[in-house]
């Protein structure tokens, strides 16, 4: 059995238009949602109110203690019930693999982004917060105008590195039969019985993208390091 490049060429439009679009869109939405929710969680974890910080801590630790595959299964089955509970329906509502994946990755990555943002917030000198209060700003203003912009800026390289991991992790939606880049390749691989070609190609594409992104992050890191 020779290596058949033709099957890759034939399926390129499908792989990228269907598969890669799914993967990239999912990554971008989960990154945005994850960073927003993660920052809120970080603020909760650092809150002086014990119940609030404990709640956020429990959520983060739970997410970080169980495998992503299990989390994907959890949400895949849980979201229809939560949806029914919210809309008051008496049947679990139908949620597709796409919506389920978006919710799962946003909720899951938030736990990891939270830990990064928490470290970022804690790296800001205490005097910054005090001067905010001294100027008469309230908590949200101090956070929004003083602490978070600095914390975010310090953590941009780590947040981006986490996003590269997220980009790779989205391939796990394979377990709920979503058609992401890997899922699309797997469908072709099984249809044409070209597993070697398709999976090697998938590995090369993921490598090229992730490695290029990591080089960009490294460059950015050096640039930021000079300014500080």
């Amino acid at each position, binding site marked *: 059995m020779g290596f058949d490049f033709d099957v890759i060429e034939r399926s390129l439009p499908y792989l990228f238009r269907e598969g890669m679009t799914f993967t990239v869109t999912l990554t971008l939405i989960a990154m945005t949602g994850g960073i927003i929710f993660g920052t809120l969680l970080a603020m909760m974890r650092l809150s002086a109110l014990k119940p609030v910080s404990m709640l956020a801590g429990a959520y983060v630790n739970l997410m970080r203690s169980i495998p992503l595959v299990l989390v994907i*299964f959890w949400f895949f089955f849980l979201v229809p019930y939560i949806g029914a509970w919210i809309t008051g329906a008496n049947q679990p509502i139908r949620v597709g693999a796409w919506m389920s994946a978006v919710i799962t990755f946003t909720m899951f990555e938030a736990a990891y982004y939270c830990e990064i943002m928490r470290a970022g917030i804690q790296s800001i000198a205490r005097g910054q917060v005090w001067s905010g209060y001294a100027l008469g700003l309230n908590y949200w203003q101090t956070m929004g105008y003083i602490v978070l912009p600095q914390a975010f800026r310090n953590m941009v390289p780590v947040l981006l590195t986490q996003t590269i991991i997220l980009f790779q992790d989205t391939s796990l939606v394979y377990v709920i039969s979503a058609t992401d880049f890997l899922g699309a390749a797997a469908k072709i691989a099984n249809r044409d019985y070209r597993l070697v070609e398709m999976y090697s190609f998938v590995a090369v594409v993921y*490598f090229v993208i992730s490695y290029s992104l990591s080089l960009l992050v490294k460059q950015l890191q050096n640039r930021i390091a000079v300014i500080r």
Partner: protein
Amino acid sequence: MHYSWHWKVLLETEPGGTGSYLHYLIVGLGWTLVTAAAAWVIALVIGAFVGTVRTTTLHWAVRIGNLYVEIFRNIPLIVQMFLWFFVVPELLPEQLGNWIKQMPPPWGSYLPAVMCLGIFTSVRIAEQVRAGINSLPRGQRMAGTALGLTQAQTYRYVILPQAFRIILPPLTSESMNIIKNSSVALTIGLLELTGRARAMQEFSFHVFEAFTAATVIYLLTNLVVVLLMRILEQRVRVPGLIAAGGAPQAGH
């Protein structure tokens, strides 16, 4: 809308007839641990070696080490799993490839899963080892040279014993990661804990009982690992050193 809980399902017999569902899940945990443990050995050996080599003055070896790390860090775990399961047996000499493909279950999935997880994790350990070695003061290395030790001896007696103690906390989280990551092996047919929870859901339709049980088992396992590693940390602690934490890192 409500879900009718039925916890007793855990005590009912699973369709395979090997025992109760709970027993079925516990055996799954066994497979998770056996996979993770074997992979952990591979990861530690290769990771320690590659990480150490990357701090030496052998430029060609550093290059190869860097290449190794970049390759296995930038390909998703599930894709690597498929490479080991579907692609590697095809690329091997025909007899060996066939032997692997014809291994009876679960060994046919176990072997690729262990190789995949071991190599995947070795890269992360290599990074930790390198960081640990680089965090030591330069004077340690110089002192070794001044004492007349060779580079190999300096590593063996001065650098590595300290570096490994420093990186114990990140190694703890890596050992939990390898347990969690072993769940990806369900995609190549290994019935470990998550795979069995899903199978139980398919047989019994009790989705949330199955996943709750698996979640609780994972939490307890994590707890045990953390406790064991903490005991190890205290055993090997160097008196007078503040236990080193690490800078925040991205990871899973």
